[in-house]
């Protein structure tokens, strides 16, 4: 049974980490990061079976692949606070010689990261490959992937979506962050995605919605449902309905904070709304 209070405290600290990281270097992507704070926190703190420490092959553990790499602030915060590297290292986000590059990479050897992402549309293919490696290794663990909704405009996703279904990659749970926003505006405005559910279903996936994608309890039960649906010959897609910028009132529900950092005043307000829980770095 999930300890919701504990997870809430974790997420509040992750939100602080997100805004503090991007504020310090006046760059980065807080909007999408905040929108996925609950989801990625729940994955690492509640759902994934993880081994102590980090090795690239990740045998006999669940693995997570972040395809929309620009939400690195949330990924880094959750990784650090899940024990992959010192929390103090969040101080180096986007700085010269840091392992915390603007977009996640294996290149600087940051524990917890298994693939570079940032150039969109590539992560799902990698997750599919990792899922097939697990099958070859008779490793009965799950591969999780997260993509942005705007990212679905990249054609490579649809190659991977077709393939995963045709090849019965059923140890894969791919989540789409449906926040309806991308850099130039709403996804409806920029390039209407149509029904994402209908598209995934037409490609042969099991599709589940988590309507309250920023509600910890809803994420826990939705993802448990997704886990239960896996292993039955079909890949599983979770449509996670989130609010971009969630948890910081002036960042919520707009694409304006996709790739913009708060100023000092805005940071103070964001931190006031999210009081320290686990200790700032």
């Amino acid at each position, binding site marked *: 049974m999930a300890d919701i209070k504990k997870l809430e405290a974790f997420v509040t600290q992750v939100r602080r980490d997100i805004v503090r990281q991007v504020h310090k270097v006046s760059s980065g992507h807080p909007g999408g990061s905040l929108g996925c704070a609950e989801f990625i926190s729940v994955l690492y703190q509640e759902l994934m079976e993880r081994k102590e420490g980090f090795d690239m092959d990740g045998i006999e553990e669940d693995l997570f692949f972040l395809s929309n790499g620009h939400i690195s602030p949330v990924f880094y915060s959750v990784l650090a606070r899940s024990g992959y590297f010192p929390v103090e290292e969040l101080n180096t986000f986007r700085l010269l010689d840091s392992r915390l590059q603007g977009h996640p990479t294996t*290149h600087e050897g940051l524990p917890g990261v*298994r*693939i570079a992402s940032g150039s969109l549309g*590539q992560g799902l*293919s990698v997750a*599919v*490959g990792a899922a097939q490696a697990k099958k070859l290794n008779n490793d009965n663990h799950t591969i999780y992937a997260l993509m942005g909704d705007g990212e679905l405009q990249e054609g*490579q996703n649809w190659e991977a979506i077709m393939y995963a279904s045709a*090849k019965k990659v059923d140890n894969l749970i791919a989540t789409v962050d449906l926040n309806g926003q991308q850099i130039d505006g709403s996804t409806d405005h920029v390039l209407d995605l149509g029904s994402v559910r209908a598209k995934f279903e037409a490609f042969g996936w099991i599709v589940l919605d988590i309507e309250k994608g920023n509600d910890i309890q809803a994420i826990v039960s939705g993802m448990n449902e997704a886990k239960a649906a896996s292993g039955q010959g079909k890949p599983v897609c979770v449509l996670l309905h989130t609010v971009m910028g969630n948890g910081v009132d002036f960042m919520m529900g707009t694409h304006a904070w996709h790739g913009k950092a708060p100023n000092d005043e805005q940071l103070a307000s964001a931190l006031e709304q999210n009081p320290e829980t686990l200790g700032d770095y």
Partner: protein
Amino acid sequence: MKTYENTGSKDTRSGFGAGMTELGRTNPNVVSLCADLIGSLKIQTFIDENPERFFQIGIAEANMMGIAAGLTIGGKIPFTGTFANFSTGRVYDQIRQSIAYSGKNVKICASHAGLTLGEDGATHQILEDIGLMKMLPGMTVINTCDYNQTKAATIALADHVGPVYLRFGRPVVPNFTPADQTFEIGKAVQLQEGNDVTIVATGHLVWEALEACKVLNEKGITADVINIHTIKPLDAEAIIKSVKKTGCVVTAEEHNFLGGLGESVARELSLTHPVPQEYVATEDTFGESGTPAQLMEKYGLNTNAIVKKVEKVISRK
């Protein structure tokens, strides 16, 4: 002058297939991926013997590169297979981010490289792939010259950790390197010893260089012929040692002069031992339909072209 015997012409892609067959039997971590070109890549035996280790991706090369990157996570050694054009230019960013920058142990194996793909024409005849791949930090780039060398290279790749681009071709060409050779990545192979010129060749142009050497000999010109199967990392030491003796160099490759072997050689020589250099390569052009022999003649990539460039470079000494 050493004599090299053609032990029976074969296509280099069959050497790749034979190498994969052997790896299938000897290395349980090797997996094969293909984008709807099993017959062209000659991997049917690997598939028959290891069906669980073969991944038919369909006509989706970008997805293939991503899946290959993912398969390394879990200890697999993926060998992707499609034409050179679809192995590189089509999927450059996938290779760049998910394989090269991510440091994944993927072997990108590319058949039908260059003009000798023939009648299909320029849409399929990539002449820019060596440049594209050698520009990627950490990428090893290999262009083999015959069946035996391609087989040996394929087998050697499994023991090399890191991303590799292995380039080979479609046509049947002379098979003249030893069947029992050990393939050393990054190590040049000296095929002929001479004093007047160094010929540095890669891929299908190696045999042409040997033929050119015979013609030159009759004209009283002796050549060092160096088989550079590994374009990156380049065995600069072997090349510099040779040009210190000969004082000039001709590079020969089935590729655009921009971004190819010739430019890599020029850079090394310019840093340490500049000498006159001539390029046997395509001149910043696309290919076209035709037979391999017609195309190699028209675009100046054969024995005659090498002889002419040798005479020219010697006159510049």
